[in-house]
Protein backbone atom coordinates (compact mmCIF):
# COMPACT_ATOMS: atom_id res chain seq x y z
CA UNK A 1 0.00 0.00 0.00
CA UNK A 2 2.98 2.30 0.48
CA UNK A 3 3.66 2.20 -3.25
CA UNK A 4 0.04 2.89 -4.05
CA UNK A 5 0.13 5.77 -1.58
CA UNK A 6 3.23 7.23 -3.18
CA UNK A 7 1.71 6.90 -6.64
CA UNK A 8 -1.71 8.36 -5.87
CA UNK A 9 -1.29 10.67 -2.89
CA UNK A 10 -1.69 13.67 -5.18
CA UNK A 11 -5.11 12.38 -6.27
CA UNK A 12 -6.63 10.62 -3.23
CA UNK A 13 -6.35 10.70 0.53
CA UNK A 14 -5.17 7.71 2.53
CA UNK A 15 -5.80 6.69 6.11
CA UNK A 16 -4.57 3.64 7.97
CA UNK A 17 -6.82 2.57 10.83
CA UNK A 18 -5.14 0.42 13.44
CA UNK A 19 -7.47 -2.23 14.88
CA UNK A 20 -7.15 -5.11 17.33
CA UNK A 21 -4.18 -7.40 16.81
CA UNK A 22 -4.55 -10.29 14.40
CA UNK A 23 -1.96 -12.63 15.90
CA UNK A 24 -1.10 -11.59 19.45
CA UNK A 25 0.99 -13.80 21.69
CA UNK A 26 -1.96 -14.56 23.98
CA UNK A 27 -4.34 -15.60 21.18
CA UNK A 28 -3.42 -17.00 17.78
CA UNK A 29 0.26 -16.30 17.36
CA UNK A 30 1.84 -17.38 14.08
CA UNK A 31 5.36 -18.75 13.71
CA UNK A 32 6.23 -15.90 11.37
CA UNK A 33 5.57 -13.39 14.14
CA UNK A 34 8.17 -15.08 16.35
CA UNK A 35 10.61 -15.31 13.46
CA UNK A 36 10.22 -11.62 12.65
CA UNK A 37 10.20 -10.52 16.29
CA UNK A 38 6.71 -9.08 16.13
CA UNK A 39 5.43 -10.40 19.43
CA UNK A 40 2.75 -8.43 21.24
CA UNK A 41 -0.06 -9.48 23.51
CA UNK A 42 -3.55 -8.26 22.65
CA UNK A 43 -3.66 -4.73 24.11
CA UNK A 44 -5.92 -4.38 27.12
CA UNK A 45 -5.66 -0.59 27.26
CA UNK A 46 -5.65 2.16 24.68
CA UNK A 47 -2.16 3.16 25.75
CA UNK A 48 -0.88 -0.33 24.89
CA UNK A 49 -2.54 -0.20 21.49
CA UNK A 50 -1.06 3.25 20.83
CA UNK A 51 2.39 1.97 21.82
CA UNK A 52 2.21 -0.97 19.40
CA UNK A 53 0.95 1.28 16.62
CA UNK A 54 3.87 3.63 17.19
CA UNK A 55 6.27 0.66 17.20
CA UNK A 56 4.88 -0.37 13.82
CA UNK A 57 5.23 3.10 12.31
CA UNK A 58 8.79 3.48 13.56
CA UNK A 59 10.07 0.00 12.74
CA UNK A 60 8.43 -0.13 9.32
CA UNK A 61 9.01 3.57 8.60
CA UNK A 62 5.37 3.70 7.59
CA UNK A 63 4.53 7.03 5.95
CA UNK A 64 0.73 6.86 5.60
CA UNK A 65 -1.60 8.95 7.78
CA UNK A 66 -2.69 6.97 10.79
CA UNK A 67 -5.66 6.61 13.15
CA UNK A 68 -6.17 4.17 15.99
CA UNK A 69 -9.42 2.42 16.86
CA UNK A 70 -10.39 2.82 20.49
CA UNK A 71 -10.87 -0.09 22.87
CA UNK A 72 -14.57 -0.37 22.04
CA UNK A 73 -13.34 -1.49 18.58
CA UNK A 74 -15.99 0.75 17.02
CA UNK A 75 -14.19 1.10 13.69
CA UNK A 76 -13.48 -2.63 13.53
CA UNK A 77 -17.12 -3.47 14.16
CA UNK A 78 -18.50 -0.82 11.79
CA UNK A 79 -16.26 -1.88 8.93
CA UNK A 80 -15.84 -5.62 9.70
CA UNK A 81 -12.18 -4.75 9.60
CA UNK A 82 -10.43 -7.54 11.53
CA UNK A 83 -7.85 -8.74 10.65
CA UNK A 84 -7.34 -6.52 7.61
CA UNK A 85 -9.51 -4.94 4.96
CA UNK A 86 -9.41 -2.21 2.37
CA UNK A 87 -12.06 0.36 1.52
CA UNK A 88 -12.38 3.38 -0.71
CA UNK A 89 -14.83 6.07 0.39
CA UNK A 90 -15.89 8.50 -2.31
CA UNK A 91 -16.30 12.26 -2.04
CA UNK A 92 -19.95 11.83 -1.07
CA UNK A 93 -19.09 9.69 1.94
CA UNK A 94 -20.24 6.45 0.35
CA UNK A 95 -18.40 3.14 0.01
CA UNK A 96 -16.89 3.07 -3.49
CA UNK A 97 -14.82 -0.09 -2.98
CA UNK A 98 -15.12 -2.73 -0.26
CA UNK A 99 -12.31 -5.26 -0.19
CA UNK A 100 -12.52 -8.79 1.07
CA UNK A 101 -11.49 -10.04 4.47
CA UNK A 102 -7.75 -10.56 4.80
CA UNK A 103 -5.46 -12.24 4.44
CA UNK A 104 -6.69 -14.28 1.49
CA UNK A 105 -9.06 -11.69 0.05
CA UNK A 106 -7.00 -8.62 0.96
CA UNK A 107 -5.81 -7.34 -2.41
CA UNK A 108 -4.11 -3.94 -2.78
CA UNK A 109 -4.12 -4.48 -6.56
CA UNK A 110 -7.88 -3.98 -6.52
CA UNK A 111 -7.42 -0.59 -4.87
CA UNK A 112 -4.79 0.32 -7.42
CA UNK A 113 -7.17 -0.75 -10.21
CA UNK A 114 -9.93 1.44 -8.74
CA UNK A 115 -7.60 4.43 -8.51
CA UNK A 116 -6.26 3.79 -12.01
CA UNK A 117 -9.78 3.65 -13.40
CA UNK A 118 -10.59 6.93 -11.67
CA UNK A 119 -7.35 8.87 -12.18
CA UNK A 120 -5.46 6.92 -14.77
CA UNK A 121 -2.54 4.53 -14.30
CA UNK A 122 0.28 6.05 -12.26
CA UNK A 123 3.60 4.54 -11.25
CA UNK A 124 6.50 6.10 -9.40
CA UNK A 125 8.31 6.41 -12.71
CA UNK A 126 5.60 8.78 -14.00
CA UNK A 127 4.86 12.01 -12.20
CA UNK A 128 1.31 12.61 -13.48
CA UNK A 129 -1.72 10.48 -14.20
CA UNK A 130 -2.45 9.53 -17.78
CA UNK A 131 -6.06 9.61 -19.03
CA UNK A 132 -8.04 6.55 -17.98
CA UNK A 133 -9.55 6.25 -21.44
CA UNK A 134 -6.16 5.42 -22.88
CA UNK A 135 -6.49 1.75 -22.04
CA UNK A 136 -5.83 -0.81 -19.36
CA UNK A 137 -4.66 0.05 -15.86
CA UNK A 138 -1.07 -0.47 -14.89
CA UNK A 139 -0.66 -3.69 -12.99
CA UNK A 140 0.57 -3.30 -9.44
CA UNK A 141 4.23 -3.91 -8.65
CA UNK A 142 5.11 -7.27 -7.16
CA UNK A 143 5.46 -5.94 -3.61
CA UNK A 144 3.21 -3.64 -1.59
CA UNK A 145 3.68 -2.94 2.09
CA UNK A 146 0.71 -4.05 4.18
CA UNK A 147 -0.21 -3.09 7.72
CA UNK A 148 -0.98 -6.66 8.65
CA UNK A 149 1.65 -9.25 7.97
CA UNK A 150 0.54 -12.83 7.53
CA UNK A 151 2.54 -16.05 7.22
CA UNK A 152 1.84 -16.13 3.48
CA UNK A 153 2.56 -12.43 3.00
CA UNK A 154 5.37 -10.88 5.00
CA UNK A 155 5.88 -7.19 5.66
CA UNK A 156 6.24 -6.19 2.04
CA UNK A 157 3.51 -7.22 -0.34
Amino acid at each position, binding site marked *: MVKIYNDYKDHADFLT*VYVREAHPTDE*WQMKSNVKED*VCYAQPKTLEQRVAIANDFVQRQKYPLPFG*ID*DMSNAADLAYSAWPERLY*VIDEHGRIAYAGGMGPFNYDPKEVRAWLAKRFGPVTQSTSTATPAASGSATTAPATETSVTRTPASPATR
Partner: protein
Amino acid sequence: MSRFWKWAFGSFAAILILAFAGLCYMAGSPKDVYGMVRYAFPHMHRGKLRVGADAPDVRLLALDGSNHFHLRERTGARPLVVIFGSYT
Protein backbone atom coordinates in the same frame (compact mmCIF):
# COMPACT_ATOMS: atom_id res chain seq x y z
CA MET B 1 -26.20 -54.21 8.24
CA SER B 2 -23.59 -53.89 10.99
CA ARG B 3 -20.87 -54.20 8.36
CA PHE B 4 -22.51 -51.34 6.43
CA TRP B 5 -22.47 -49.09 9.51
CA LYS B 6 -18.87 -50.01 10.22
CA TRP B 7 -17.89 -48.98 6.72
CA ALA B 8 -19.98 -45.80 6.96
CA PHE B 9 -18.42 -44.85 10.28
CA GLY B 10 -14.93 -45.69 9.03
CA SER B 11 -15.42 -43.62 5.86
CA PHE B 12 -16.77 -40.69 7.84
CA ALA B 13 -13.82 -40.86 10.25
CA ALA B 14 -11.39 -41.02 7.31
CA ILE B 15 -13.01 -37.92 5.74
CA LEU B 16 -12.76 -36.04 9.05
CA ILE B 17 -9.09 -36.97 9.41
CA LEU B 18 -8.36 -35.92 5.83
CA ALA B 19 -10.21 -32.64 6.34
CA PHE B 20 -8.24 -31.95 9.52
CA ALA B 21 -4.98 -32.82 7.76
CA GLY B 22 -5.91 -30.47 4.92
CA LEU B 23 -6.70 -27.66 7.37
CA CYS B 24 -3.37 -28.27 9.16
CA TYR B 25 -1.56 -28.00 5.84
CA MET B 26 -3.46 -24.82 4.94
CA ALA B 27 -3.13 -23.16 8.34
CA GLY B 28 0.38 -24.41 9.16
CA SER B 29 -0.12 -26.62 12.18
CA PRO B 30 -2.85 -28.07 14.45
CA LYS B 31 -2.39 -25.08 16.76
CA ASP B 32 -3.08 -22.76 13.83
CA VAL B 33 -6.20 -24.72 12.96
CA TYR B 34 -7.42 -24.13 16.50
CA GLY B 35 -6.61 -20.44 16.11
CA MET B 36 -8.52 -20.26 12.85
CA VAL B 37 -11.59 -21.92 14.29
CA ARG B 38 -11.44 -20.04 17.59
CA TYR B 39 -10.63 -16.55 16.33
CA ALA B 40 -11.06 -16.22 12.58
CA PHE B 41 -14.26 -18.04 11.67
CA PRO B 42 -16.62 -16.06 13.97
CA HIS B 43 -15.42 -12.80 12.44
CA MET B 44 -16.21 -14.00 8.94
CA HIS B 45 -19.92 -13.93 9.67
CA ARG B 46 -20.12 -10.31 10.72
CA GLY B 47 -22.12 -7.84 8.63
CA LYS B 48 -20.36 -6.36 5.66
CA LEU B 49 -20.66 -2.97 4.09
CA ARG B 50 -21.63 -2.90 0.44
CA VAL B 51 -20.59 -0.52 -2.33
CA GLY B 52 -22.99 2.41 -2.32
CA ALA B 53 -23.65 2.27 1.41
CA ASP B 54 -22.94 5.31 3.55
CA ALA B 55 -19.52 4.96 5.15
CA PRO B 56 -19.94 4.80 8.94
CA ASP B 57 -18.33 7.62 10.85
CA VAL B 58 -16.06 6.55 13.68
CA ARG B 59 -13.90 8.40 16.18
CA LEU B 60 -10.21 7.62 15.96
CA LEU B 61 -7.15 8.46 18.00
CA ALA B 62 -4.04 10.01 16.49
CA LEU B 63 -0.63 8.40 16.94
CA ASP B 64 0.22 10.90 19.67
CA GLY B 65 -2.29 9.14 21.87
CA SER B 66 -4.19 12.27 22.84
CA ASN B 67 -5.81 13.91 19.82
CA HIS B 68 -9.01 12.49 18.36
CA PHE B 69 -10.57 12.93 14.95
CA HIS B 70 -13.51 11.52 13.03
CA LEU B 71 -13.04 9.41 9.92
CA ARG B 72 -15.57 11.55 8.05
CA GLU B 73 -13.33 14.61 8.60
CA ARG B 74 -10.99 12.99 6.06
CA THR B 75 -13.71 12.56 3.38
CA GLY B 76 -15.32 15.06 1.07
CA ALA B 77 -12.62 16.66 -1.05
CA ARG B 78 -11.11 13.52 -2.58
CA PRO B 79 -11.63 9.75 -2.41
CA LEU B 80 -10.32 8.27 0.82
CA VAL B 81 -8.50 4.94 0.79
CA VAL B 82 -8.87 3.29 4.20
CA ILE B 83 -6.50 0.52 5.21
CA PHE B 84 -7.54 -1.48 8.28
CA GLY B 85 -4.99 -3.74 9.93
CA SER B 86 -2.55 -4.36 12.76
CA TYR B 87 1.12 -5.10 13.27
CA THR B 88 0.85 -8.78 14.16
